[in-house]
């Protein structure tokens, strides 16, 4: 098993934390993991992205030039990362703010309206875990029990009161993701 994944969007969307939850979940499942962020000025209002690799073998390069899965959360990232999905790979995107939808025919495309769903619920902070839930529905690379431990481990103790809401958001993300092609 090896899953090479990029999560890309705006700084502040929880891109890096989503990657961290996934990486911790991988650790719980005894996988090798790498979490390689974009860092610096990119994070402050610009684009942010993180490459997460989960593998049952030693991971050679933490830098990837093609991805099994791309989770795309803004238009700039669509331009940059749609071409970098492996043929036969998966692209998941939130439709909010997307002006040019994915065009590739050789990959599976899924849409999730997590931004508008969170706005409807008045729970903007659950955005990234809802997206994560969508991803895990499509690519169940880690068991849900390990995701829940990973979620707890990646949150500071003061945020643990938010655990049930985040768990629910992960489940709900799995319900609202839909296949485009």
């Amino acid at each position, binding site marked *: 098993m090896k899953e090479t994944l990029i999560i890309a969007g705006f700084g502040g969307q929880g891109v890096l934390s989503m990657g*961290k939850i996934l*990486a*911790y979940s991988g*650790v*719980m499942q*005894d996988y*090798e*993991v*790498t*979490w*390689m*962020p974009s*860092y*610096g*000025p990119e994070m402050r209002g610009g684009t942010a992205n993180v490459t997460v690799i989960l593998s049952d073998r030693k991971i*050679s*390069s*933490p*830098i*990837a*030039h093609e991805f099994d899965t791309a989770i795309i959360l803004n238009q700039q990232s669509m331009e940059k990362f749609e071409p970098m999905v492996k043929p036969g790979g998966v692209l998941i995107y939130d439709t909010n703010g997307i002006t040019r939808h994915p065009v590739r025919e050789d990959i599976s495309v899924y849409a999730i309206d997590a931004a508008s769903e969170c706005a409807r619920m008045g729970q903007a902070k659950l955005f990234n875990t809802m997206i994560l839930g969508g991803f895990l529905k499509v690519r169940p690379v880690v068991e849900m029990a390990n995701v829940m*431990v990973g979620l707890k*481990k990646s949150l500071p103790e003061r945020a643990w009161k938010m655990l049930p809401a985040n768990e629910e958001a992960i489940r709900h993300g799995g319900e609202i993701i839909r296949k485009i092609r």
Partner: protein
Amino acid sequence: MADKEVKLMKGNEVIAHAAIRYGCDGYFGYPITPQSEVMETLMELKPWETTGMVVLQAESEISSINMVYGGASTGKRVMTSSSSPGVSLMSEGLSYLAGAELPCLIVNCQRGGPGLGTIQPSQGDYFQACKGGGHGDFHLIVFAPASVQEMHDHVAEAFDLAFKYRNPAMILADGAIGQMMEKVVLAPQRPRRTNEEIAAECREWAAYGKPADRPRNVVTSLELKPEKMEIINRRLQAKYRALEENEVRYEAVACDDADYVIVAFGSSARICSATVEMARAEGLKVGLLRPITLYPFPKKPIAELAARGVKGFLSAELNAGQMVEDVRLAVNGAAPVEHYGRQGGMLFNPDEVLAALKEKLIKK
């Protein structure tokens, strides 16, 4: 498995944990991206409340390296960390530390240069780390971690060698290794050395307070008589020869039957290990020689590969060609040696290195 002592951490965070657990006595630093998490983590862990380790934010890098000089003079295990421009500011101090033969640890989490450059990963400070980084004939002991686990392990190894040889040691990391999170197993907590232990270990040179039964120790790099200064230099050179003889560390991956060998260190070596997998999948016999110590450099294993009939070497570095000079010296004309690199904070991809290998060496 969930309760195993496996942590997920950034390379920079691990430096802080490893220093505390090694029993480090003091850290002096000044923030700079991409290594600021070292001091941030130390401040969060508050080791002064547990082991008694001092953590101090200095007013500049010049100040922090001279605090290291002061702490090291007393036989304490002290360290600093910075990124490229900050390490340039420390270069006078590095020369003085080497001249006064003071053991200590400097961590350089490199970013793109020259000048203020970028904050993205680079390996542009190879020359600075291995060929000087200050005036005079001296060497640092230089480690090049290629994983978060090695960021941890090299702290203890570098301190141990620094004290064994009474010489400053450097961990030459980069923004990629510093910012990346991976699994790491932390060492058990070791106690800091007691004053009695330091007096026993560093009796001959450290200025921890003069006991009645030995003359005063003077820590200095100054010697105005050139005849004496040459003797000091010869002693330093003998030490460097001993390091070259005894302390070279490297990893050879798939080199036994390799026709072509990539030489790469740190984050580049990680990327190039994927290049080796790709090449092997195409039936090309490619290996990877990864120097773990950059100084002392693994000349001998590279020379042996050349003598064994390797048809070409590619030095893949995130710079314009620095380590390639040492690879050429080691190969000494026995085979072609080429360089492939990216600069300014750009990384290469595994397939890019494979394409360069084919273009520069295999097609010839």
